[in-house]
């Protein structure tokens, strides 16, 4: 990424007593990108987001957003940042419109046209009491409030939680539109398909430590491709002792392997055999993610 860094995190550590919430995190979020922050429950995604926003006091490290110190200049940062927390709640006895107007005015914006436009788009009835809304509709209120002040950076913790598939698609559409407008989006998720669909880059976190930060395309490239071949006759497994071929398995006449490089050599070797069937499959993000976790480390 050539774009300016909007969010620069260096050595960020947050401890809750003896428990480490996030450890020595280095991460940059660039202007105009959507960065997906991936990890299972309890990995440290929410802790990272909330520490960056000053809702949690960092134990050590440095967070700069728009070049401003996250602690010293937090009010200015929050003026330019929209936020959707993982557990979004509001006043149950008040109308959605009252709540959104309040939150919008707190951001220093008086024009409510975008608020109304977003509500209509997400099919949210703003004249209903917040407490009477379903979980999905409450989440829509959270989405509207995160986007309505048209801020430069949007931070979201599990943005599509509770939304039905149609609304999820609308949310992705919204995210892409914001990106097209040059907005920066930092979102956590454990829905891998969602991250794959909307994010430019992905940061994977495991046990409070960052494992990898990559563009999704190049991450897939690095992880290689899954090759499955069904031979007419049994073949000698040593045929595939080639650099760049991992996880080779032979089941009868069927061979599976992960090819990270030297694909041409593999093709040359198998071309000497009779082949019944063959498939070359790129990893989905889900497979990548599971691979990271099953390997228990930095994907090595």
């Amino acid at each position, binding site marked *: 990424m050539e774009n300016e860094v909007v969010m620069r995190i260096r050595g960020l550590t947050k401890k809750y007593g003896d428990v480490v919430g996030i450890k020595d995190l280095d991460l940059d979020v660039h202007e105009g990108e959507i960065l997906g922050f991936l990890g299972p429950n309890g990995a440290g995604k929410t802790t990272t987001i909330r520490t960056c926003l000053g*809702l949690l006091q960092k134990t050590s490290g440095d967070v700069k957003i728009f070049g401003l110190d996250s602690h010293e200049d937090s009010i200015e940062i929050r003026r330019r940042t929209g936020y959707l927390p993982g*557990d*979004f709640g509001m006043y149950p006895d008040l109308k959605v419109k009252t709540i959104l107007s*309040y939150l919008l*005015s*707190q951001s*220093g914006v008086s024009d409510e046209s975008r608020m109304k436009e977003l509500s209509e788009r997400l099919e949210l009835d703003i004249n209903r009491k917040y407490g009477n809304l379903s979980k999905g509709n409450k989440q829509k209120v959270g989405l509207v409030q995160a986007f309505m002040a048209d801020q430069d950076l949007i931070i979201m913790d599990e943005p599509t939680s509770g939304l039905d598939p149609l609304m999820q698609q609308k949310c992705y559409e919204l995210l892409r539109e914001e990106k097209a407008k040059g907005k920066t989006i930092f979102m956590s998720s454990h829905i891998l398909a969602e991250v794959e669909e909307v994010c430019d880059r992905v940061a994977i976190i495991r046990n409070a430590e960052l494992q990898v930060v990559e563009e999704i395309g190049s991450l897939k490239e690095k992880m290689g491709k899954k090759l499955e071949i069904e031979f007419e006759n049994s073949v000698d497994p040593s045929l595939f002792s080639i650099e760049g071929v991992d996880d080779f398995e032979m089941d009868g006449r069927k061979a599976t392997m992960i090819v990270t490089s030297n694909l041409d050599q593999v093709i040359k070797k198998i071309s000497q055999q009779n082949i019944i069937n063959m498939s070359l499959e790129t990893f989905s993000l889900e497979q990548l993610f599971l691979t990271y976790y099953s390997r228990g480390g930095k994907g090595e």
Partner: protein
Amino acid sequence: MKIGKTMLMELKNSWKGFVLFILVVVLLVGGFAHAYPSFSEAFEDELEGSENVDVKMLKEDKEVNVTLNWKEIDNAENYSILVGKSPNMMVALERVDGIERPPHDYNLSYDEDGEIPKRYFAVVAVRAEGERELVGIETNFERTTAFQEIWGVDYGDIQGFLSLLWSTWWVLLIGLYIGYISVNVITKDYEEDRMDVILSKPISRRQYILEKFMVVSLYTLSVLVIIGLVLIGSVYSVGELNSVSSSALIISTLLSWPVFLVIISVSVLAGIYLESSRKAVGVSFIFILIQYGINMVGDLTEGLEYLKTYTIINYWDYESALYGETVGALDVIFLLVLSALLVVSALVIFERKDIPV
């Protein structure tokens, strides 16, 4: 630019409960003042026939000469005088019979402390057929009620009656409610998961706390103003507004505000620190009940009056306000400073605090 928006939101969120509370308090206070006439009569508690008997005393070196005079009764053959320590003459100390007519001189020795003993004198008329009729009972001292002796004020007048209101259930009624809402304006934001969003907007934590503190303070002030006005109206309706001025009623009511400000500060601090409505309301209520209890013990127990100086209620000088329309400025300043210190402590804690999920 954004000052007051959190306050306004809190007002929108909680005004219904507050209006209901005001209605309850208005009914109670209005009703309380209307109880004054019958209460006052009960306190008049005059001795039977006291208007018929006159007691005069002449202090001498060794004794006090008491001259009794009374209204003579038709057909009375003579009179008896009973002297006792209480109006119940069944346990009379002395009895003098056969007095033909008033006046009658009676000598009373000083007690061990050199004080004039307090005595009740009953004059009884005896008719020819032996029939007896009480002329009246009078004392050689100014009678006080048990309430007067304990509390040191005369509950027979409207000021004393209102002092009874202020000194009894007032602090509990208003204090417990104010403590409850002061806790909830903070803890509900934690418990209903909105603190994150509110604090993600460009509002400082300091401003957030101050606005929460101010909204409850203004609630309390408005209750007190309304109560002051209701008191004026109800005191007027029982015809006592010539006995106590409107300004005395308003001042004595509003002087309780600094006491409630301390209660608000303690409750907000508890809410911030404990993050739980249940726990923080518990702390707030215990604080109020302990204050109330210590104040009561200090009031009712001889020798323990000093305990009252450790309670915030002691610094609400409603009696001076009711009787003299004066404001104990030092008392008010003390409470305001105490409240400010507690709010500053709340700010310091909240500024450094992790906001719980």
